[in-house]
């Protein structure tokens, strides 16, 4: 069974440019998460989807970040415009149903460097 797929793995851009990350969750998983992981820190939730609905986006900086999950499968996270402080690893995870005891499966992440 394929795991969570993310692309690109690495992205280098200049500040003020837009950038997008793509995630394909494990087949059949209804819940999808985007996390931000700064250097030396644990992941922090940006947004959680259950099917197509964003059920928790309280930590998403909505002035520059946006996300979508069309048809309840793949998801895209966008930053426009990027700032120097956005340099981090962006992780996508999925779980079967989003319950508190469900295991979250993580992708390898996209490492973003903003110059």
């Amino acid at each position, binding site marked *: 069974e394929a795991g*969570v797929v993310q692309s690109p793995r690495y992205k280098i851009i200049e500040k003020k440019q837009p950038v997008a990350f793509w995630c394909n969750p494990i087949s059949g998983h209804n819940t999808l998460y985007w996390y931000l992981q700064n250097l*030396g*820190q*644990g*992941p*922090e*939730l940006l947004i*959680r989807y259950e099917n197509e609905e964003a*059920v*928790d986006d309280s*930590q998403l900086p909505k002035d520059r970040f946006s996300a979508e999950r069309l048809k309840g499968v793949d998801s895209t996270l966008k930053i426009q415009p990027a700032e120097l402080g956005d340099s981090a690893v962006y*992780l996508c*995870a999925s779980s079967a149903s*989003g*319950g*508190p*005891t469900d*295991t*979250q*499966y*993580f*992708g*390898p*992440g996209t490492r973003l460097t903003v110059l």
Partner: protein
Amino acid sequence: AQSVTQLDSQVPVFEEAPVELRCNYSSSVSVYLFWYVQYPNQGLQLLLKYLSGSTLVKGINGFEAEFNKSQTSFHLRKPSVHISDTAEYFCAVRLNRDDKIIFGKGTRLHILP
């Protein structure tokens, strides 16, 4: 609100020696507890989780953790480490369906030859 504290940012240990990675949490209600491992340039992988029942939880790769409610701790242990255990380990806590999982800052395990 709940929080997680990993007391050591780095832990060096000789190969085949035992190791303990410490984790304390803060919450006024019952929680679910997790340990994840992150190998270099990879995503996080679940090692083990405590949901209820026996306080000693066994996970993959020979790791185990013990839930101690009175000390609000969930320390991770392995009796004999290998070079392949070199990674970052994250302790995490979650309350219920609508609460997000909170991760600690991580502990980097260095295996010395």
